[in-house]
């Protein structure tokens, strides 16, 4: 097992791979997240972002590779102690629909070793203090995302993994959630891996962008200036053009589904 070389790194991933039958979802990817750094994890649908995140959260088993959190290996279903320093939102936050938001967060808190005061403080921080008595099943998507953020940050983690935290929200909701993430990460100095397919979100919140394509990291780019995100955008456009080329060459379908023969 390789130990973390750089003491500034909070997360190091080496040679992570995952196969689902014959499909290779991840192809030996390696990257790191430094303390207090927010890293954007970009990629198109099916690129392998969620798979990577689920592996790091021990929800699915990798086919190969290892990850270290503060120097400790974390992959394997029996390794759970690192969840005390790791917070995460994976896809849409899921809680028990018949329990209130407050009760759901309290259940999470008790398993994470956090008391009731912290639960109330987090509910206030994410703006749910007044609506926390409503059953989770009656929450709007924005409220669900807020509760998910509260759960992810509840035990004061040193690294958070956020999988498309603004997914499905309207522009106002997206803005609110982004401000919340910025407040929770930057002000508390928490390292973050932010998975998204929204370039403006990554440009706004992240210090660095990793671009994943077909299970491989094809770009690791700092985001210090506006030109940096433009470079990432250009890479995406190139990918889209590469995909579009064979589509354009495909003859269009005629009405009724019959394929038109190309003119010779």
């Amino acid at each position, binding site marked *: 097992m390789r130990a973390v070389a750089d003491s500034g790194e909070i997360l190091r991933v080496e040679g992570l791979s995952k196969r689902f039958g014959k499909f290779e979802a991840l192809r030996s990817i390696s990257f790191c997240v430094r303390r207090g750094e927010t890293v954007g994890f970009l990629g198109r649908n099916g690129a392998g972002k969620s798979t990577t995140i689920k592996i790091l*959260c*021990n*929800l699915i088993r990798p086919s190969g590779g290892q990850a270290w959190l503060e120097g400790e290996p974390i992959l394997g279903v*029996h390794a759970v102690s690192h*969840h005390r320093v790791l917070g995460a939102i994976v896809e849409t936050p899921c809680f028990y629909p*018949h329990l209130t938001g407050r009760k759901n967060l309290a259940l999470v808190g008790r398993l994470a070793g956090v008391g009731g005061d912290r639960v109330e403080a987090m509910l206030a921080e994410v703006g749910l203090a007044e609506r926390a008595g409503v059953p989770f099943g009656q929450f709007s998507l924005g409220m669900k995302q807020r509760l998910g953020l509260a759960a992810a940050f509840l035990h004061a983690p040193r690294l958070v993994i956020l999988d498309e935290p603004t997914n499905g929200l309207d522009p106002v909701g997206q803005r609110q959630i982004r401000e919340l993430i910025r407040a929770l990460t930057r002000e508390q100095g928490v390292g973050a891996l932010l998975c998204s397919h929204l370039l403006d979100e990554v440009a706004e919140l992240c210090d660095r962008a990793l671009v994943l394509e077909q299970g491989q990291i094809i770009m690791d780019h700092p985001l210090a200036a506006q030109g940096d995100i433009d470079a990432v955008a250009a890479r995406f456009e190139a990918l889209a053009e590469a995909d579009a080329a064979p589509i354009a060459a495909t003859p269009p379908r005629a009405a009724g589904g019959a394929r038109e023969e190309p003119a010779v």
Partner: protein
Amino acid sequence: MIGELWRQEAIKLLSQKYPYLLMAVTVLLPVVRMLVLALTPPRSSLDVVSGPQLWAEGMEWSLRVMVFVVLVVGAMAFSQEFSLGTARTVLMLPVSRTAWLTAKLLWVAALTWSLLLACCALYAAIVAATVGWGDVAREGLVIYAAGTFWWHISLSIGLTAVFLLPVCAFALVLGLHFNSSGAAVGVAVLLGIVLESVSGLLDAGRYVFLFHLHRPVALVGKLGRGLPFTWETELTLGLATTLTWFALLMLWGWVRLVRMDITT
């Protein structure tokens, strides 16, 4: 951690409506049967119901329903977590899969045993209030006196509790194979009916190697027929195979849970 998970299982289940309906059916349906038997004037000496007979009648009815209640609650324990997506939420906390499985088993077993004891006590009170407890006699011969009857009841109920354990394990394991709680419950109940029917058709020698679904009913039924509880060779072998089934089912469940990818 197991204690906290157990507590949370209790909160989650008891904050829903369906368990109360199931428990009410299990406890109250036999009460109606008992009251009809106790309050209907006997037409001949053959119709006279003794206290132990009345108690066993209630317990027999209750146990037939209880097996299916255990199958429903057990099958939903995991399948509901998968269908709601809350398995993801729990396993992103410092919770080991082994502890989670253990807590769920302990909770389903505790619920089953509580139901068993509640029925036992309620039906004993109904007997005391109606026909009364007394010596059990057949053709003038006292089989067991009122004082020793409780010893026979305790032994049969204790063994019944053990024989219900593999039913809990069977239901939990089934629930681990379904992402839909409806499908898990449906299959658990269907298999329960099939296994009960098949095991009832087999001769004793082969029966002991099968799943003892109707064994609890048989144990109590013997008391109802005015027979004392006796330890038979078949019972020893039945108990041994039951515990082996329980261990094998739990091992199956553990392997399934620690190897499974949580993708929902």
